[in-house]
């Protein structure tokens, strides 16, 4: 075998100076030739470690071999056996924490660019027009309601319609896709890709009903009168705030508001679109996850001269994907690490003008294994800003738990489920994704959807609802 190149085949991308002025996608993706070169780096391990890191167990060496041999259609088929949203996952999965982390090549060199190859395959298929529809099983006559159209809901809907059930998917917002449409920005995940994936399940026969908030227009109990099973994939959409003084000043946004205005409501095209957004010149984003990176980079694209990230731990503890941190750095986002906001100060008309912060030091590891940040007494200082985006996390919306007797929730309002089946404490009701785990990842939501779909199918066919394991 030829000597393996130590580095990943680079993926061409928009120049940072150009891209901070537009909302177009940053990386261009591999050409067929680049993909084949990268695929050839894979050692085709007999015991592929990469697969152990993949939450949905994609046959990674398998699809990569197809690419290496130029059999792109087969690569897609192999991928889609396990992952219904490869175009999305190839772009947003934290590969460096999953498959690529375990890839043997990574021990000496850079791992195989598994994510980029996944993305390539999905895009290759998209470039050929509409994807062929999988064959459906004979109708079972069973009816299923899926609540929420994020990755968890889409996966359940897609899996169950293929097994011959009738599926209706309800969405509270006016567009389907969950966080993929309202949260993750266009420059990272073009909305036409999400629309394509949603359209795919609709073409398979899933009935999609938008503008329907379950819990108000219809309760889960009412759904159970019309459907044989219900899946709750309502995500973790309730934004947290810091609960520090001055937080309700104007131009202080939750990341959800900021990104929803920008993405879902297309405020970046204001006034062509009616929804406004404040185009701050000095924007501080608080937090260190993907959501924070997306907000800080959105601020640049909306014209910020300075986009600052304030994070209370160090670079090492940042939960964001590596690629997002790199991209943010390239684009000139200013990282203020080991810094914790304690108050906001406003002008006399109620608009934020300063963030007061404390410096932090890293102490002993906490429950999460990360070193706990501890404040340095008296180190208060202020950063001048004209807007702030708070991006410190989300928990599940209480609407459904509050209107569904018998549905148990945990400490953060997350719906309690049996891990392997998605069964909730209520008969006929399953759940999965962020609503059960709290804010997590696209792939984990899909994995949960897949497990729930399997258990739902069994329940629909047998009618058996085994007592839930108590854990």
């Amino acid at each position, binding site marked *: 075998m030829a000597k393996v190149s130590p580095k990943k085949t680079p993926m061409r991308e928009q120049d940072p100076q150009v891209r901070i002025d537009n909302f177009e996608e940053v990386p261009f993706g591999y050409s067929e030739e680049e993909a084949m070169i990268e695929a050839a780096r894979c050692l085709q391990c007999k015991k592929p470690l990469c697969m152990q890191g993949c939450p949905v167990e994609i046959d990674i060496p398998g699809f990569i071999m197809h690419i290496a041999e130029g059999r792109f259609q087969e690569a897609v088929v192999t991928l889609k056996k396990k992952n219904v949203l490869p175009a999305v996952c190839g772009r947003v999965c934290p590969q460096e924490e999953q498959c690529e982390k375990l890839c043997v090549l990574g021990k000496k060199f850079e791992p195989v660019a598994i994510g980029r190859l996944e993305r390539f395959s999905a895009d290759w298929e998209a470039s050929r027009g509409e994807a062929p529809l999988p064959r459906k099983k004979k109708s079972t006559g069973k009816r299923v309601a899926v609540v929420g159209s994020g990755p968890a809901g889409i996966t359940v809907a897609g899996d169950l319609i293929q097994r011959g059930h009738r599926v209706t998917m309800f969405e*509270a*917002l*006016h567009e389907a896709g969950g966080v993929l449409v*309202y949260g993750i920005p266009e420059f990272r995940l073009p909305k036409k890709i999400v629309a394509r994936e949603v359209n795919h399940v609709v073409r398979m026969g899933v009935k999609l009903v*938008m*503008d*329907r*908030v379950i819990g*108000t*227009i*219809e309760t889960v109990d009412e759904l159970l009168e019309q459907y044989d099973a219900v899946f709750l994939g309502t995500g973790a*959409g*309730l*934004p947290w*705030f810091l*609960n520090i003084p001055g*937080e*309700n*000043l*104007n*131009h202080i*946004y*939750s990341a*959800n*508001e900021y990104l*929803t*205005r920008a993405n879902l*409501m*297309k405020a970046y095209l*204001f*006034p*062509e*679109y*009616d*929804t*406004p*957004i*404040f185009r701050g010149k000095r924007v501080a984003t608080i937090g260190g996850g993907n959501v924070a990176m997306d907000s800080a980079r959105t601020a640049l694209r909306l014209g910020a001269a300075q986009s600052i990230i304030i994070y209370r731990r160090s670079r090492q503890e940042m939960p964001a994907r590596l690629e997002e941190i790199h991209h943010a750095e390239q684009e000139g986002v200013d990282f203020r690490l080991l810094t914790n906001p304690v108050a906001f100060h406003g002008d006399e*008309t*109620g608009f934020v003008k300063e963030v007061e912060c404390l410096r932090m030091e890293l102490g002993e590891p906490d429950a999460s294994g990360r070193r706990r940040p501890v404040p340095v007494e008296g180190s208060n200082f202020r950063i001048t800003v004209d807007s702030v985006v708070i991006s410190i996390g989300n928990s599940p*919306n*209480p*609407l459904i738990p509050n209107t569904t007797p018998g549905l148990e929730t945990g400490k953060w309002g997350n719906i309690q489920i049996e891990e392997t089946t998605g069964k909730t404490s209520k008969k006929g009701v399953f759940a999965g994704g962020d609503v059960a785990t709290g804010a997590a990842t696209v792939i984990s939501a899909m994995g949960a959807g897949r497990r729930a779909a399997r258990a739902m199918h069994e329940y629909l066919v047998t009618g058996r609802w085994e007592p839930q394991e108590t854990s």
Partner: protein
Amino acid sequence: MNKIAARDMVVPNIHLLTVEAPDMPGKLRAGHFIMVKADEFGERIPLTVADWDEQSGTVTCALMQAGRSTRKLAEMNAGDCVSTFVGPLGKPLQIEKFGTVVCAGGCYGIGSIYPVARAMKAAGNRVITLIEARGRYLVYWEDKLRETSDVLMVSTSDGSTPFRGRNSDRLRVLIEDGEEIHRVIAMGCTFMMADISETTRPAEIPTRVSLNTVMVDGTGMCGACRVEVDGNTRFACVDGPDFDGHAVNWDLLRIRRRAYYHQETISEER
């Protein structure tokens, strides 16, 4: 997509917008609101439900033309479709037999107070409805309100009705006259609701207001609608919009309502 069944200007600047939403009426209660988005480019804006009809499957809102989004709706006609009409949203008002209930409405709130008066009446309360407008020519739904109220009192600031002044002035007179009031509900512009709350504060009459903050999703997902009640941050769309008027931080509310003043001007001038 929901079809507009009717859109009429009842008085200058206020339109009654009736939209087909077949299974919504059965779920609506006084105090609920909906979010409407006129077209692909539209903003999602909240409107309180003013009436509904299960038979025809329609929902009516009183729409006050304020800026671009309300103007877009005001310019639509029967047969046109709005791209989103979602609800019911928010917590409905607490309706029970309190005794004597004052329902106060102004501008669009003259419409949205109607289902409140109706429900309070049906629950066995003595209902005194107060409505206010600049002049008599801006008063609508007098007949409907009279039907659902024991007493209807109209106040105008130009004196074109017997009582010159505002709802709060009328309410003060009632209180001074020794009317025993068990609850007050106010709906309409922020100024009026704050004013009513100040009027009832000394006598500690329980007062509910329906806050009209800026909103984006209306489902508790964004926090644009945050208000401060009793010193705690609340989301108006899911924790409200109905709150204790004596516990609301009105200054903050006024400030937050101005967040988009500049952009609203751009949008209007387009």
